[in-house]
């Protein structure tokens, strides 16, 4: 989460946020190096045949660099990441960099509509529930969102597939595949995954936005606005919304990296869509190290960018967030 503590180091705010971002990146790469390389699978035996001699083993280990000191290996791992020399995929041998550049746009196209709709509808429902707090509409929305939160993503995916993609249901949409070349074909393939993403996030979003809105509506300045004849619409969409932009921004910015990777992972592996999620899924099941390292690096980068962008948005939205 953002570190809203403004260190009294006098460095300009942006530089300090950048340094904080860099330190996080270092942490992410260190952890991923530790887990995926240092403790990762030992490939020496793959390259050697049966009962290799000790010299062959040490030779291969030397070429693979396993005998180098820990820090040095971490050094070249960082160098690789920085120079985007991400190596080749173990399973397909294709350059990791080209895999990422090919699959990332597909994942974004897949996840974006569900993500945007999920937050916009969630915000509107949250506002409604907060405004009519305690009345039947609030109770209805809350119990619906409890149901939404109690259903696993996998169940929604399988359920929707049965309902919409198989002869047992309406059979309107493809059960797998991603032959997208124009808008109609895009809609044809993206509808069911978007619906799944929407259903699984709507419950959580509505409750979260309701809690934020309730807190804002209870503030004293709302009473003042009511005492001066402000209409409910102006009250909600001008005052309450602007005051709650900080928690709203935080939620949206920080769910981007996860929805893009974790969200797409399930959707793509299930609907057979060749995005970064499917690539990560195969990498996990087959233990394809270079891909895993690259995806972790990518998400770390996305997370840090989200972090820095949030701070900038904070001060743009809320005058009290001053950048000493």
């Amino acid at each position, binding site marked *: 989460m953002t570190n809203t503590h403004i260190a009294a180091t006098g460095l300009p705010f942006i530089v300090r946020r950048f340094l904080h971002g860099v330190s996080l990146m270092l942490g992410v790469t260190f952890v991923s190096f530790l887990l995926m390389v240092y403790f990762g699978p030992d490939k020496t035996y793959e390259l050697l045949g049966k009962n290799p001699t000790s010299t062959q083993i040490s030779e291969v280990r030397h070429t693979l660099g396993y005998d180098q000191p820990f820090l040095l290996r971490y050094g070249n791992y960082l160098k690789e990441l920085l120079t985007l020399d991400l190596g080749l995929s173990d399973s397909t041998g294709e350059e990791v960099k080209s895999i990422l550049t090919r699959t990332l746009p597909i994942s974004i196209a897949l996840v974006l509509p569900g993500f945007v709709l999920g937050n916009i509808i969630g915000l509107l429902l949250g506002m409604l529930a907060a405004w009519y707090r305690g009345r039947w509409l609030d109770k209805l929305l809350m119990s619906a969102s409890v149901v939404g939160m109690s259903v696993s993503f996998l169940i929604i995916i399988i359920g929707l597939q049965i309902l919409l993609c198989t002869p047992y249901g309406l059979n309107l949409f493809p059960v797998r595949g991603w032959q997208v070349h124009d808008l109609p074909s895009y809609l044809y393939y993206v509808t069911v995954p978007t619906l799944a993403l929407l259903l699984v996030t709507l419950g959580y979003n509505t409750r979260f936005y309701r809690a934020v809105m309730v807190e804002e509506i209870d503030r004293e300045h709302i009473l003042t606005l009511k005492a001066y004849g*402000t209409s409910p619409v102006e009250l909600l969409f001008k005052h309450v919304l602007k005051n709650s932009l900080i928690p709203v921004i935080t939620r949206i910015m920080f769910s981007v990296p996860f929805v893009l990777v974790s969200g797409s992972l399930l959707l793509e592996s299930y609907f057979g869509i060749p995005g970064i999620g499917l690539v990560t899924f195969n990498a996990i099941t087959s233990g394809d190290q270079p891909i895993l390292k690259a995806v972790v690096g990518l998400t770390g980068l996305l997370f840090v960018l989200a972090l820095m962008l949030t701070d900038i948005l904070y001060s743009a939205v809320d005058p009290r967030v001053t950048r000493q």
Partner: protein
Amino acid sequence: MTDTALTTALNVQGLSVWIKTASGKQQIVDNISFSIKAGEATGLVGESGCGKTMTAFAILGMLPAAGATLESVAIEVNGRDISSLSSAQRRSVLGRDIAMIFQQPGTALDPVFTIGQQITAVHRRHNRSKKNKHRQAMLNSLAQVGFDQPDKIAAAYPHELSGGMRQLAMIAMATVCKPAVLIADEPSTALDSGTRALVLKQIKRLQTDHGTAILMVSHDLSVIRQSCENVMVMYCGRVLEKTDCQSLFTHARHPYSAGLIACIPQLNARSASGAKAIPGQVPAPSAFPPGCHFAPRCEHAASQCDLSVPGFLAENEQGNERGNERGVACFRPL
């Protein structure tokens, strides 16, 4: 409309409020009636929990607590009953004919909009003129409450001003549309003596220069004595005494009023035994005693006080020449 209705800026008749508590519905404002003429200031005094703030909000038709209900015979502002208006019609009255300022200047203004934006919005809402008269009206209003550089204040965000300045900005917002009635809910409680004097001076100026009728809600009798002509003493949802400040301080008729006055620490005398305190404490709504609510704490209470509720004995016509209402709700007034 009788002639008094013409000059009466605010006329409240039979106002009652109930709230939903854990132990069912409790009445916290019991049949309050009073009227304030233009250019007059009336104080509504009582300890915390007596229902005075709830009364103020009920007059505007706003009930902050969920599940609260309100009843009134009439709430007339400049002779027009606003209690029977639809919420849209009432919204056109709030901020134009009747306005309110609050106790905590720190939280009463929206922190993410500038002072200027908030005041201009009120003026624009109630004046459909096309020219940018709204900004000018806002700047004038700020200047009138004593800011020598109104444009600097207009560009500032609430957190950039001190408590006193925020309260003055609040007064500017309340008076940008020149309302007939201003309700001030504990306007100076959160301020220290310097800024308090400044804020009360500005409220006084509204009353004298613009003929605004002021209803000042406070727990501090010395503030009421300083800023209001008339005073109503409230306890556990009921008005126990209504009179002018002069008479209240010279000869309070209700034992509770007398007790309240005796509690006030005097600035120029250190009373030997210390301020005389009223024994016991204010009961919660669910535990209001039957009969006169003050009876258990009242030294003059007789058996009658515990049994039945004393009616409000309005004094006969010999009230002072401005003929405002006077009276006391007590079987054995002092």
